């Protein structure tokens, strides 16, 4: 589920978001969600639910409660094993914590990014480290089972020692999951503009590597195992929802710009809140673009995704799902990548070596 509202755009963000201006925006969003869910009948039985954005936590407690209520009209919640909601630390109030708990949310993902004030400023985030600690305490007290914190590294000016200190603070937080991302410079973001203006310099690949390794080491020491290139979890806290994406399995998305993938067809919703809503009002599906995944493309994509996980790819399973054997050329490339010690065999599975993880995109480009 995609809730598009944000207070303002963070410097690195290129998501389709809407700045929340009036309550009528919220009404349209809620009505739109209802309309969209109606398309799918009244008995969806997902294994996981994920409310992201945007910032779902921007919704007022009452609106949030209303949002969850509308989901319940269509979704059979008995099948749900994991229910995640994204939140910004500054939005986590006692009221909202209660709403989350009452809705049966099992997991909250906090957009922390850093606990260093200067780094937060660089990223255009508005919260303080104190707000983060407070949010974590509130969520734990509300009985949320699993808490994720997002972390961004290789920010301009972030030396290894600044990052190291930041990691120490992350590890001290009583959380269960860390998503750690290398900062990216997307087109049409404030960050990219500043770079183009020469007002900031991105880190060299060599220092990005140092940061990547530091994050990996420190989190591993603290008991967070990397089950995916950017995702670290304490035992029993891997995100089932995200594993769905990496395993290229089926999912339904609702809300502006949400992506769905069902039966080798993938589509993406209209990103603009108004277009999305008016399309739904006309009784139409708000699809902006769709593509059908031919077996070869499906295989390529599956490699790119599943190799990111620590379990890797089970070739026989992939062939079964693609209904096609893996071609000679890809197999040759796999052998070559194994010779280069970027891929390795683990039982019947193929997975990235530690060095392969650092070059995962190159490996993916070979097999896509």
């Amino acid at each position, binding site marked *: 589920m995609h809730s598009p509202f944000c207070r303002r755009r963070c410097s690195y963000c290129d998501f389709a978001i809407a700045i929340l201006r009036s309550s009528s925006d919220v009404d349209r969003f809620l009505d739109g969600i209802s309309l969209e869910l109606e398309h799918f009948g009244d008995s969806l039985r997902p294994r996981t639910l994920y409310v*992201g954005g945007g910032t779902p936590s921007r919704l007022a407690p009452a609106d949030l409660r209303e949002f969850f209520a509308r989901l319940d009209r269509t979704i059979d919640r008995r099948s749900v094993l994991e229910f995640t909601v994204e939140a910004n630390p500054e939005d986590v109030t006692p009221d909202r914590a209660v709403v989350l708990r009452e809705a049966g949310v099992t997991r909250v993902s906090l957009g922390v990014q850093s606990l260093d004030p200067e780094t937060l400023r660089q990223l255009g985030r508005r919260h303080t480290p104190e707000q983060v600690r407070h949010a974590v305490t509130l969520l734990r007290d509300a009985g949320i089972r699993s808490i994720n914190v997002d972390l961004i590294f290789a920010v301009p000016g972030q030396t290894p020692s600044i990052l190291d200190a930041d990691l120490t603070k992350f590890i001290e937080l009583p959380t269960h999951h860390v998503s750690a*991302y290398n900062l990216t410079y997307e087109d049409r973001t404030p960050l990219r503009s500043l770079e183009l203006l020469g007002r900031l310099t991105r880190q060299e690949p060599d220092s990005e590597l140092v940061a990547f390794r530091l994050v990996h080491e420190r989190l591993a020491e603290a008991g967070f195992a990397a089950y995916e290139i950017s995702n670290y979890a304490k035992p029993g806290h891997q995100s089932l929802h995200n594993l769905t994406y990496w395993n290229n399995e089926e999912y339904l998305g609702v809300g502006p710009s*949400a992506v769905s993938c069902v039966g080798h067809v993938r589509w993406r919703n209209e990103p603009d809140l108004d277009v999305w809503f008016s399309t739904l009002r006309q009784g139409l599906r708000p699809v902006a673009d769709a593509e059908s995944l031919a077996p070869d493309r499906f295989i390529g*994509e599956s490699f790119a995704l599943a190799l990111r996980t620590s379990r890797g790819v089970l070739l026989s399973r992939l062939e079964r799902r693609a209904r096609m054997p893996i071609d000679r050329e890809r197999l040759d490339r796999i052998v070559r990548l194994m010779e*280069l010690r*970027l891929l390795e065999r683990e039982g019947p599975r193929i997975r990235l070596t530690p060095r392969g993880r650092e070059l995962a995109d190159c490996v993916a*480009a070979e097999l896509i």
Partner: protein
Amino acid sequence: MTSARIRNFCIIAHIDHGKSTLADRFLEITGTVRKEALEAQTLDSMELEKERGITIKAKAVMMKYKADDGQVYTLNLIDTPGHVDFSYEVSKALQACEGALLLVDAAQGIEAQTVANYHLAERAKLRIIPVINKIDLPTARPELIEEEFENILMLERERVLRASAKTGIGVKDILETVVRDVPPPTGDPNAAMRALVFDSVFDDYRGVIVHVRVFDGSFGRGDKIRMKGVGSTHEVLEVGTFVPGSMIPRERLRVGETGYMIANIKTLSDVRIGDTVCLEKEASTVVALPGYKAPQHMVFCGIYPTQNKDFDQLRRALEKLSLNDASFSYTPESSDALGFGFRCGFLGLLHMEIVQERLERESNVDIVQTAPNVTYEVVTTSGDVMRIESPAQLPDASQIEEFREPVTKLDIIAPAEFVGGLLGLAIERRGRFLHQEYISETRVMLSFEMPLAEIIFDFYDKLKSLTRGYGTMDYEVIGFRPAHLVRLRILVSGSEVDALSTIVHRDVAEQRGRKMLVKLREEIPRHMFEVALQAAIGGKIIARESIRAMSKNVTAKCYGGDITRKRKLLEKQKEGKKRMKMVGNVEIPQKAFLSVLGITRDAEK
């Protein structure tokens, strides 16, 4: 008209010393062309020639001159190419004359090319008339130039004329001297016809127009002629003489005369400069005129289209160019690195530049030109002599008995203060000092023997910068000499890159190899693994570099299942790789080859 009142002569001069301007004055004085109609420098018709100030193709014009003795003379002025790359063509043009004006700029003095062309004229036994031009210049120093004539060419001071082609001073004197001193053509009007082919041009409408000088007998329309060297037979459609801008048909060309012949010849390759034209019926008995040689290509380079799809267009452009210039050759070749292109042979470095420039100007193809190489000779262990025009033709080292390279006699004229630096440069370039001569108090002529390969490798630029632009040079290939040459191999991750191998002297192999590796290191992107770059001679590694493995290439997750966008990025990354050349495990971008092999040239530029 008898041949006693014909004078065939040419002007030899260094570039810019005033040859074209003087020719214009002659045309004006003789009334061949009215002053107003006299487009500046009439003899240089090609656009390119005008721009570069170089006369590429020899031309001939006929002028009628009423001399002080009251007689009307026919003066044939034959224009010669100004550069020794064309020395064979120059020598043939000279062979068509009995006299030569040796023109020297009063401010610049004698230059290296002047000396070279003087020696050619002397060898052709021409009557030489030394002329100091541009005496109107405030910087003119004719006494000094006379001294140079005396010292370096052993011409008596008293014979040196002074003139200004610009103002006309002294120009009539020159013509009078030509009439008086240049001998009329000899030859037997009744003997079997013999004419020398000294040039040819291609005309879109009329086919090949052959420039000839008749040495014996006469011929005209309807005659069946034979090219003695090439062996082809043609029927003469028209003969005539040139005036600037047009051709005047005549019944016949007679002994001693210079003119043109049109004989329905389709391509320039059917005509060889230096060949002898005779009548078909007398062909078996006529003795050919001396000195006929096929053009010798001393410099080669690869010319490739930057886009593979432009190959055919490039071929058409080369075909067209060769219609106008029979002295360059092109044969298709393919390179692992650059795809399909042509290996082109040239008379020399300047010739190569001229052809490239025309190619860019007259075709619309972006081309890549590889660094030039010279022609080598290899004597194999079985005793055969092979000509090597490309490193790829080189046999295995074990089959090479002797490796030879073309060696030149190089003359440099420069102010004396630069002698030390020039000697240093020459030694660096494997030059062997021959002698040094003061041509005046301040200027020196240095002579060396130097491998041609060293000259084509930016020698001229070095000479110019070393002498602050005052030095001039000229060279002539004098033969092939054994040398310690090796094939320098470039290996990337242990695999040889054929397209990058070169032939170099053993002494500079390390230095050359290292330079190439450094360039490669800059142009090959970092890989998932460390890439080793090596330069080797046979199995021996003489230089190495390495490209560090890429440090990190992994981005954030694909948010919210938006995998399509991520996949497209990866697919783009993969596409980019397809355009690269795989050598073993390593992807080498085309740009890397270009930066190592030579230079890109843009058709639009």
